[in-house]
Every structure is written in C-alpha cells, then in structure tokens.
C-alpha cells in the first residue's frame, strides 16, 4: 500500500491515509477496467464495486499477509486491499498469459494465493464454506492466521450462509464474516426478498457476535474490523461485520442501472467513501495536493497496468490443457 511522506497527526493519520490510498487504488483499478471493458479490451462479464471500497479497505488493513480471504463475484477490491499484484490482476481481466490465473479465470475468478487471496467466486455464497474450511485447516495446522470472508447481502438467503456460520461457531474458527450490504442483489432489492430483521439477527441466532457499521466510512470499518479481528485472534471464534454501503454502478459493467432511483444515486454519490475520507482528511489539515497526489498515483498505476496488459502476450493455446489434474489429464493433439 502506498504510504505518503510523513505528516503531522501520527499513527492514526497515517492509517487513514493508507486507507485512502487503498480506496483510490481500487477505484482507479475499476474505473480503468470499466473503460477497458467498454473499449472491448476486456472480454466477459465484469462486476465492479464502485462506492463500496470502504469495506474492502477497512477490513483488509487489519489482516496480515498470512491471513486469508475469500470473495464473491465482485472481488477486485478485496484482492487489491489484500495486496494482490496489480499487473497480475489487470492481465487476468484482459485474459493474458501473465494474469494471476494465467487467463483461465478472468474477473469473476480473480485470485492471488501468494497474498492469501483464495479466490473470487462465480456462485453467490460459494466462498462461505471455503472460508470456514480454510480457517479449520489453519487451526488444525496450528497457525494463528485468520480468514476474512466477503459476501453480499444477497448471499444471506442461501443455505451455505446458515451452514457456514453454525459450523464456524461449533469449531470456534478464526473467521471474520463480512456482509457487504449494498441493498441489492443483481436487479432485486434485497429488502424485498429477505425476511425478518436481517443479517445481524440471523448471525446472532447462529451464535456469531456481530457489529454493524457504516460501510462508507472507511475509518469506522477499520475500527470495527480491528475490534473483531482482535477477538478472533484471541481465539474467541467467528465474528460478523455488517457493513452497509451503496454500489453506484450497475450489477455488471453493461448494466446501466437504469432501475435505480436517481435521488438515491445522487445521495450515494454524496456519501461515497472516498469523498468522505477526503473531506475528513482535508478538515484535519492534510493538504489537498497531497491527496490529489495519491489519487493521481493510483490512476497512473492503473492506466499503466492497462497499457501493459493490452500489449501483454496472450496465453499460448497449449496451456489450455494444463492445470486440470495430475492423474488422467488429457493432452492437446
């Protein structure tokens, strides 16, 4: 993560600036990807998380490199915040040979195991059992790493949500469940398909203590996550963070989100996490130019990554047959 020159304000200020930097990088990555997708440079579906960066940044700043995360279909922010390499991510989106997944996964299956990012997932709630199992494996191996499991508000109506939380409590596993509640699942308002009081009540009924937080306030997310992570590291078992947020863009890159209430979108733009943290830092006396520098750096990094990806080599078709399995692999002929 980019850290600026030393400024007044001490540790906390530095932490906020780091959060700001992470969010700017996520935003820049996704805006760049959106433009590249529009330009036909990125094939396949693309789900961006513009407006939701506060959650990824605030949670992952509390994780160590040897901690793990699992993600959903909207995983760029989680991956970047966990430290995934940008060029490997951008090349993956472009389907190039240097992608983290050698071009086999694309945006929806972005992963970087070298930094503990165990993969995005094309199946809603698909990452929940995997995260819980990873925590169980780490515990068995005697490691003190933890696992953060990101999923959307749409995922809490699928069975694995119940099975996963129940299980994590039973075996007292080091899992931080993170529900990014943006109010919508694809084209359906989640309130219209979610009965009862919601994720926190469900979680508590399954024995998982929770905190709710304004997900657009990255500092608040950081604070809440840091409390929960400390409890988890202390061996208290799983915790859930419920972060409310708003996705400004559509479900996929090609969804104009015309179904959205314009007033809500306008309000969301006011409340979006980067502008909010910028306002706070400015009020605290951080010079505008310094923040502009961070943003500019992020944008430059990502557009370089785009250019590099665009001219990066395509995977050799022969590798299509690789990475299937050791026994019984088939070969090209």
């Amino acid at each position, binding site marked *: 993560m980019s850290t600026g020159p030393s400024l007044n304000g001490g540790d906390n200020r530095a932490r906020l600036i780091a959060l700001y930097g992470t969010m700017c990088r996520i935003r820049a990555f996704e805006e760049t990807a959106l433009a590249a997708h529009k330009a036909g440079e990125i*094939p*396949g*579906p693309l789900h961006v998380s513009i407006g939701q960066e506060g959650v990824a940044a605030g949670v992952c700043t509390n994780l160590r490199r040897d901690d793990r995360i699992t993600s959903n279909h909207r995983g760029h922010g989680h991956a970047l915040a966990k430290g995934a390499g940008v060029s490997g991510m951008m090349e993956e989106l472009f*389907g*190039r040979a240097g*992608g983290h*997944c050698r*071009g*086999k*996964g*694309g945006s*929806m*299956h972005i992963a970087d195991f070298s930094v503990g990012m165990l993969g995005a*997932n*094309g*199946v*809603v*709630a698909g990452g929940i059992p995997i995260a819980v199992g990873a925590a169980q494996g780490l515990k068995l191996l005697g490691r003190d790493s933890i696992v953060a499991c990101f999923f959307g508000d*749409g*995922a809490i*109506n*699928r*069975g694995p949500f119940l099975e996963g939380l129940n299980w994590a409590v039973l075996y007292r596993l080091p899992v931080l469940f993170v529900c990014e509640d943006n109010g919508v*699942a*694809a*084209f*359906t308002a989640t309130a*219209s*398909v*979610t009965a009862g009081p919601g994720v926190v009540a469900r979680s508590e009924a399954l024995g998982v203590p929770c905190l709710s937080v304004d997900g657009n306030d990255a500092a608040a997310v950081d604070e809440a996550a840091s409390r929960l992570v400390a409890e988890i590291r202390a061996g208290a078992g799983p915790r859930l963070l419920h972060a409310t947020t708003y996705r400004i863009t559509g479900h996929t890159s090609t969804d104009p989100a015309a*179904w959205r209430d314009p007033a809500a979108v306008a309000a969301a733009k006011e409340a979006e996490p980067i502008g909010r943290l910028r306002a706070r830092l400015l009020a605290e006396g951080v010079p505008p130019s310094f923040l502009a520098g961070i943003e500019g750096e992020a944008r430059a990094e990502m557009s370089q990554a785009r250019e590099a990806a665009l001219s990066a080599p*395509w*995977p*050799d*078709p*022969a*590798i*299509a*047959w690789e990475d*299937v399995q050791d026994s*019984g692999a*088939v070969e*090209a002929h």
Partner: protein
Amino acid sequence: MAQVTLVEAARLAALQEMRRDPTVWVLGEDVARGGLFGQYRGFLDEFGESRIVSTPISESMIMGGGLGAALVGTRPIIEMRIFDFVMCAMDELVNQVAKVRYMFGGQAKPAVVVRMPHGIWRNSAAQHSQTLESWFTHIPGVVVAVPATPADTAGLLVSAIRSDDPVLFFDPKNLFPVTGEVPEVIDPIPFGRARHARQGRDLTIVTWSALVPQVEEAGAMLAQRGIEADILDLRTLWPWDEEAVAASLGRTGRLLVAHEAVTVGGFGGEIVARMVERLGPGGMKAVARVGQPRVPVPFAPPLEDALKPDVAKVVAAAEALVRR
C-alpha cells in the same frame, strides 16, 4: 409467421401457455424484471406477482418449492437463471423432482419445467459455461430438451409446459439472439423426434443445442468439398430419436456425433453405443465424436477457442471420417 429471436420465441411460447392455463406460473430470480435474458419481459404486468414470482437467491427453494407447488396441482416454470446454479439445487432436482412419482407409486405428478440456460457463454469461464445435459439422460424420471432454433424452442417449451413429466429444458443461451420464424399459434412439438436439418448420403452428423448452427454451417462447407452430410438435430435427448439416427446411419454407414459438452461421458457415447448395439459393428463403417476435451471452460479467448468445438473441428472430423 413472425421472424423473432430465440429468446423471444421462448417468451412467446411461455406467454401463450400462461394465457391458456392459469395454473402455469414462473419462479426464479429477477423474473419480475423480465428475467436475465428478457424471457419473461412484460409478464409481471400481465400476470401479477402471484404468477411471476421473483425470488431470493435460494436455489434449493426455487427447485423444491416448484416441486411442492406441482404436487398440489399447479404447473411451475422453474427458472434457474444459468444452468450452473442448478448445482445448488441438485438434491431437490435429482432426489426429489425426478423420483417422487416413482417412489410414491404414481401418486405424485411433478409437472414442472426446469429452465436452465446452458452452454459455453463467451468468456464467462468455468462456472458459467457448463453443458451437462448428458447427466440427466442418466436420471430416470425426467425429459431432457435441448432445442437449437426459435421454432423448436417455442414448440418444445409448449410441450414441456403441458407435459405431466418434469422437463429439463436447456435453453441454448449462446443462441438467444439467433432469429427464425415462429408461427402465430405455437403448436407443441413432440419429444423424441429429431429435426432433419440436412439431407446427405456420405455421413450422418448427430447434434443438438448450441452446436447446431455450427454443424449446419459445417454441412454447407462439406458440401462445397463434395461431402454430403445427413444432419440430425435431436432436439430432445430423452426420449431421443434412435429410429431417425439408425435410419440415417443405415444409409450413410458413417456416424459423427458433435456436441458442445465434454466428449468423455457425453451423450455422444450413448448414441454411438446404442447404434453399435443395434446395428452391430458390421452395420457401420466409421464412427467419431466431436466435443470439448475434458478440461474446464477457460476465460481467455484464445484458450476458450482452443478447446471449444466449432465449425472447423466438425468439418475436419467429418472429412477424416469419410476418408476412413
């Protein structure tokens, strides 16, 4: 006759049947908004919330709930959005939907249609591109429909909705934009009858679903090279038109089965085996299959292209077969 896209043909068929029979209804994610592909566009306004049920992301309930509603006499259209998500509802499909009629000695009538847009979806990678129709030919109790044209999609969907059997309806999602003629009044197309897509005497090509247009194109190319293919689009895999295949093979002596699914364990193997059992090895001169190698579907265009069956691969296989 209107010229419409395949997805519109499917929409018209469902519309016709929902107007005819008030016990037909739809459940699935985002169906109130018209469905992911517009298959149900306008349905909410016409039929209301009780018949166009937009659901939570709860695939077990979507499938199991459809079954329960069938058991009390309604005819649900269960919309799975994308085939791959049916993996979240397999107990409900395989252990319940397919078995209740038999286990309960005929008391249950699981008259559901399960719509599962399937097949390789350009650069959508391994979890959104599966083609596992052969699995369900192996499961007693279900009909397996794999249409490829607007007219067949419409006619088979009408049959599916009227059928008392559970019908697994594989919408060919990559062909949704393809256009074709669909009659004003859509008559049911019976299950188990192939469409004779091309006449020829040199070899028989059996195919279905997303690969049909490519096989037809291959047929045209082969003709230019002097090879006349007899092309059968099976349209349903259970029941399937064994008679038509056997008759064609009796004329040509050469059998090529081409499908988008992985070759190993695909339905092509069943067709070949049935024909050898039926006609004897002496009843044919050569046999081959074209399908995806046993590899998950990759994301990047050059990788996907390397693996997926296409016109060139069908042409090459046909030429090799005729030479044998």
